């Protein structure tokens, strides 16, 4: 395996991670499942590609434009559907994702179902890495602010959140918009990495894959999402020598993890300098009479 190949996989993981981080905020921290995030990726991807190809914008502004468009679109969808409870919201996003794909299939301006070749190759390892680091820092800052805590409160108990003065609808909408913006940037990165866009890339399978990564990594954990994206994006590549069996093994490994650790790899715990320190001191003392609820760190 040469470096170029590994870098390629890491970039794919990074692109996935970008939208997984967004979905993590929505699903892991605000408690709403979405099966339409590929739709937001598509909006971001096509918008940023339009900006660089047709209007000659530089890469970063084009990415931000894609994020903005995805966020605005999500605001529109959110206004209409966020009052739906649990499963119904999930179905609404599923419908949205498919609708976006079908619309793009028929818009000849973007090449329709045949796809859109010739997008400049702006995405490289460095900018994926930097963008992801910034995205993680922003997300972590949101989570430990009062806005982030309010989102967690909404996830835990909606009625109680209302009673402590949290505008549940508003925080769901904020969470959805940020999450869509992340997906939009991921779409833009993908467009300028593949140099080709096709509506088929943003099907339900993509949305499902993102949700699987979030759950696999552990709901309510940013480091879990990072770990999940790295593992699950590279797993099919590592298993390439098993050819036809690789997707079966992929599926099996997801099932095994979900059975043995239903809360996901990290399940609510974060890998931060302070938590690492705690873990090391515990491993050294080996007696660690910590309460049961802290056992999550053991699997690291």
């Amino acid at each position, binding site marked *: 395996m040469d470096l170029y190949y590994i870098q390629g996989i890491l970039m794919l993981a990074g692109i996935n991670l970008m939208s997984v981080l967004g979905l993590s905020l929505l699903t892991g921290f605000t408690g709403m499942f979405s099966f339409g995030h590929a739709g937001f990726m598509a909006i971001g991807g096509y918008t940023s590609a339009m900006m660089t190809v047709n209007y000659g914008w530089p890469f970063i502004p084009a990415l931000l434009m894609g994020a903005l468009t995805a966020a605005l679109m999500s605001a529109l969808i959110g206004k209409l559907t966020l009052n739906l409870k649990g499963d119904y919201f999930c179905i609404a996003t599923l419908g949205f994702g498919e609708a976006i794909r079908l619309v793009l299939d028929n818009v000849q301006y973007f090449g329709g179902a045949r796809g859109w070749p010739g997008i400049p190759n702006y995405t490289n390892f460095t900018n994926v890495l930097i963008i992801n680091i910034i995205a993680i820092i*922003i997300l972590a*800052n*949101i989570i430990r*602010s*009062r*806005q*982030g*805590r*309010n989102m*967690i*409160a909404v996830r*835990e*108990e909606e*009625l*109680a*959140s*209302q*009673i*402590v*003065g*949290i*505008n*549940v609808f508003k925080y769901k909408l*904020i969470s959805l918009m940020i999450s869509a913006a992340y997906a939009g940037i991921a779409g833009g990165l993908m467009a300028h990495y593949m140099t080709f866009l096709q509506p088929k890339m943003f099907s339900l399978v993509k949305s499902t894959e993102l949700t699987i990564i979030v759950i696999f990594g552990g709901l309510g954990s940013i480091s879990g999402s990072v770990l999940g994206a790295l593992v699950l994006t590279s797993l099919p590549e590592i298993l390439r020598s098993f050819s036809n069996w690789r997707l079966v093994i992929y599926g099996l490994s997801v099932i095994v993890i979900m059975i043995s650790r239903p809360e996901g790899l990290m399940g609510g715990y974060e890998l931060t300098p302070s938590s690492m320190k705690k873990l090391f001191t515990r491993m050294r003392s080996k007696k660690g009479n910590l*309460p049961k*609820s802290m056992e999550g760190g053991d699997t690291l």
Partner: protein
Amino acid sequence: MNILEMKNLTKCFGGLTAVGNVDFGVPKGIISGLIGPNGAGKTTIFNLITGVYKVTDGKILFKDNDITNKEPYLISGQGITRTFQNIRLFKKLTVYENVLIACHSNGNYNLLESVLRLPRCRKQEKQLKQKADDLLEIMGLKDRKDLIANNLPYGLQRRLEIARALALNPELLLLDEPAAGMNPDETAQLMTLISDIRPKFDLSVLIIDHHMDLVMGICEKIMVLNFGCKLAEGTPQDIQNNPKVIEAYLGVEG
């Protein structure tokens, strides 16, 4: 002076009138009680005040402002907060996080400031954390602040719910059966707690409860509800001697 005023309050669920034409004022600065047999509509009244249910007819005035049918988060923003009959904590979060979340309205830094972690955000975060710490101290939960709320003993869960309500700096605190499921000892502790926090936080309190020793012990004004209608209103002595109340609770003398 009344801090909260219900005028001709009515709530129908389909054909059933859960609360009918209730007029009641909650006086400022004292502890009032709301009692009545099961299904009399006590909790419905709480749900109407806090905006969880929409009012069918009538008005609710808080400090002379109309708060009828406002969204729950707006009503709590005005200074009314409550606890629930079946405790509604953020069960999977720690005791500290429960209170810290409720402190959110004490800060006003915006999303951009949190994303960039600007000085105002950091400063206010410090204040919020301090406030959460202080509240836990007052409520005697400090040594358990890192426990998951669901793992607390029942009595302390109730206490935590009150602590969380206090984090909002309320003027009116509604307690829905705070002593439910408590033994006499815990009930006595709760009574002291409620009488302590009322002056300390300058609260007006309205309590629903079935423990008559609690209600008669700490409430200065009581309203009795039966089948959704007001049966009686007055001081604990009045209520205890009111033949209609005795009839509703015990039946007619033979």
